[in-house]
């Protein structure tokens, strides 16, 4: 697991049924592109987060494939529908096989 990886997610705590909510996610990751060289001129191997998914109560909101052109500390913002109360699950997949996830509950009135 890459060191110091920390996800941050912003989801409203409450929403009305059928309301569109804005979700923001950020994760600390260097997103080493595989294009850079070290001081000796050797290529620094690629090491990125290559996939991000957001699901709500097991149903997909968004599934993103990331390439090395995504900036350090990947950021995403998108809109979701929440039909009922439940949990969002956010998952990031690292090139090194690590998987980072976090969940957020939302109450739908």
């Amino acid at each position, binding site marked *: 697991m890459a060191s110091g990886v920390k996800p941050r997610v912003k989801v409203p705590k409450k929403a009305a049924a059928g309301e*569109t*909510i804005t979700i923001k996610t950020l994760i600390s990751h260097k997103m080493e*592109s595989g*294009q850079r060289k070290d001081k000796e001129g050797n290529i620094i191997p690629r090491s990125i987060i290559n996939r991000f998914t957001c*699901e*709500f109560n097991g*149903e*997909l*909101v*968004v*599934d*993103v*494939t*990331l*390439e*090395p*052109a*995504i*900036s*350090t500390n*990947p*950021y*995403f*913002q*998108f*809109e*979701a*529908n*929440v*039909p009922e109360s439940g949990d969002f699950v956010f998952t990031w997949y690292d090139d090194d096989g690590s998987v980072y996830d976090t969940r957020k509950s939302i109450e739908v009135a």
Partner: protein
Amino acid sequence: MELSRRETLALGLGAAVLALVPFRANAAAEDAIAAFTGGADMADGGVTLTAPEIAENGNTVPIEVSAPGATSILIVAAGNPEPGVATFNFGPLAAEQAASTRIRLAGTQDVVAVAKMADSSFAKASATVKVTIGGCGG
């Protein structure tokens, strides 16, 4: 617009470089797009790509894509060493087929968004982003 000597020179150089390089860069971008569309035609309109006209730093360029009714959107940076940027696949709970992210651009170039619609048609939009090289790095 009056061009200074330096700007004119830069234009000339740019044109010379354009004549030599983009062949390769654009071919890779076109390949990436073709892999996504399967070579299908792309309509203009139906997808919106919002990007700054000038980016203060190519390391972190905010972009937004939106294509109502799309199932997925591919983003390509035609002037990067590797043109792929991201592919967004939208599920049933995506309220809008839209997303924002921050991307790396190796220099001034076109960013392209291709949306795959629910009926398997494709739409394309592009935006030119000028990436400035500051005087005060470090």
